[in-house]
């Protein structure tokens, strides 16, 4: 294996191709982790496959800054979200859309909570809840919706988030390689980790002391290619329809609880709403096991992307007749990656895992954006050491 670390792409100040830490994946988690690492380490690099940062899960999601409402069946998760919410809103004030009203509606049939349970739950964890005004609740079909509540929940703008984070990265002089895909990683005799990068006709590599695999749906793929112990994850091939809503719905977001229902959330980067539906957003599910990994990215590019909008909108109209006036624009597609339950206890709702065979390799996966606040504690426990 020839290491050609002198390629033009590698900036001068790390001409050796040696780093203190390399982060694979320039999503929200990878970027934030690089920033945390930079507080302790000198040379930190982000390697991102796409042409820009925050293009995958950090962009193709429901943009919901969770405040707890979503989790009436897990008090701890709800409480934790409600604690992170003000922090996130404060830190990313410029990237938050709080100009809309957020309503939670409770379905009569097939719902796992009823209106009074939901209300008590919100009061118990101390998040704002009040009955919606008549002009809003009258938009819903009373035969199917028991009650509508006004709540406090915001949306984040992934494009503004990207800009803000890019500025931070620049300020901290963190190196970023875009359009660069990591193939696999290897242990070296010097105790460092070699990172192999796929290029059209050749391979390139660099060396690092610490390596962070923050590739979300690709975490297992890289481990597998490197012959390292994998983490069995669950995946959902997800579609969210982007719709232009009628004027009555322009400045509101709606989520129907708690079961096979829908959510109509503002999607700030496009000035549209995403329509997601518990039954129709996931097109496929798959689950890895110890010896079976699935190439999520290849699956993603091969799967026929035929929209489920005709399904999700019809169900939505039953609950919210005015949704009949929604115009379908296009869809966001992505592979949602779900933490294996065995790796999560409620006190640590993220995956932060040291590789048993390669101790300086860590895999990090956050189930939702605000889980970022659970990362520093994990990093502080590492006692990172600098030096080559």
């Amino acid at each position: 294996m020839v290491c050609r670390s002198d390629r033009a792409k590698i900036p001068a100040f790390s001409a050796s191709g040696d780093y203190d830490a390399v982060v694979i994946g320039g999503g929200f988690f990878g970027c934030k982790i690089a920033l945390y690492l930079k507080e302790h380490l000198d040379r930190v690099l982000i390697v991102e496959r796409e042409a820009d940062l925050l293009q995958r899960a950090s962009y193709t999601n429901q943009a919901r800054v969770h405040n707890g409402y979503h989790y009436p069946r897990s008090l701890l998760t709800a409480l934790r979200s409600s604690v992170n919410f003000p922090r996130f809103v404060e830190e990313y004030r410029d990237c938050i859309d709080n100009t809309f009203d957020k309503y939670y509606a409770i379905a009569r049939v097939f719902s796992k909570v009823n209106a009074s349970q939901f209300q008590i739950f919100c009061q118990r964890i101390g998040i704002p809840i009040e009955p919606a005004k008549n002009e809003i609740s009258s938009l819903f079909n009373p035969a199917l919706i028991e009650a509508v509540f006004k709540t406090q929940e915001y949306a984040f703008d992934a494009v503004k988030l990207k800009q803000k984070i890019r500025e931070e990265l620049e300020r901290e002089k963190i190196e970023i390689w875009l359009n660069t895909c990591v193939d696999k990683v290897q242990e070296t005799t010097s105790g460092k980790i070699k990172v192999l990068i796929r290029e059209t006709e050749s391979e390139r590599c660099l060396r690092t002391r610490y390596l962070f695999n923050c590739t979300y749906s690709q975490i297992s793929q890289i481990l597998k290619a490197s012959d390292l112990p994998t983490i069995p994850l669950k995946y959902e091939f997800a579609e969210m329809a982007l719709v232009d809503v009628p004027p009555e719905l322009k400045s509101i977001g709606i989520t129907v609880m708690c079961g096979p229902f829908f959510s109509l959330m503002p999607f700030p980067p496009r000035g549209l709403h995403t329509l997601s539906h518990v039954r129709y957003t996931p097109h496929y599910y798959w689950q890895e096991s110890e010896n079976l990994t699935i190439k999520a990215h290849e699956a993603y590019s091969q799967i026929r992307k035929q929209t489920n909008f005709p399904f999700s909108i019809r169900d939505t109209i039953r609950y919210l007749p005015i949704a009949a006036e929604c115009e379908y624009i296009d869809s966001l597609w992505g592979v949602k990656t779900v933490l294996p339950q065995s790796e999560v206890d409620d006190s640590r709702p993220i995956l932060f895992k040291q590789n048993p065979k390669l101790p300086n390799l860590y895999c990090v996966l956050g189930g939702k954006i605000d889980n970022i606040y659970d990362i520093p504690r994990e990093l502080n426990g590492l006692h990172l050491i600098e030096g080559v």
Partner: protein
Amino acid sequence: MERSDCFVSVIAPVQNDARIVKPFVEEVMAVLRQSFTNYELVLVNDGSTDDTSVVVSSLLRDYECIRLISLSRSFGADVAISSGLDSVIGDFVVVMIPESDPPQLIPELIETARNGKDIVIGIRRDRNDEPVWMKAGANLFYWLCRKLFKIPLIQNSTQFRVLSRQVVNAITQVRDKSRYLRLLGAYVGYSSQTFTYDFIYRYRHRRLKGVVELFDNAVQIIVVNSVRPLRFASYLGLFASILNVLYIVYIALVYLLKERVAEGWITV
């Protein structure tokens, strides 16, 4: 054939149908795929005690757009169908019984519905497969409904039917515990049409309902859908009261007019 651009939902209640559910699903899906751009099949497991749910679970993996609703116990086909109605999303909804209703008729029935009939109701051509007592019972039942209780039940109508979205919405507004859907359809007041068809037999021997179940069913339909039984009860009560009053008068007269009445006869 050109696929017609509408969304069709099929609801089928299944109960201990492990043996026939697979061929049923195969046929329905073939018809739906061929005829419509969007469709779904909702199977409602009405408390089966055989492997129906196991068979259906494997079918869920093999076909797109199939859903399963499982009821906690057996509630009967009407409740199973109405919980399907609570969940389907189609522009037109076909209700059918896997054992007896032919999926091949679906496109034609949907066509009828699309041409402006909100309810298209299936009628079985004959009851030749039933024993004499059952036919007689059915005839008596329909006669009673028509003549005595004034319930607008169509003779030999089955569950096989098509409902438009408007009708489904109207039916799901009715929050009545005992829903006899064949009638609810008639009550919500939309334009309807019937069609006559022959049962198919997926079981070699048709599974007939027990006498008790049928009788129970009949009583329920009558009691829930007609005020007449209540009236009859009232009249009966009134009649009995009048008899009583007459009897009291008679006793009083006996006491006043007769001279030798046995001791205690009046006060007993």
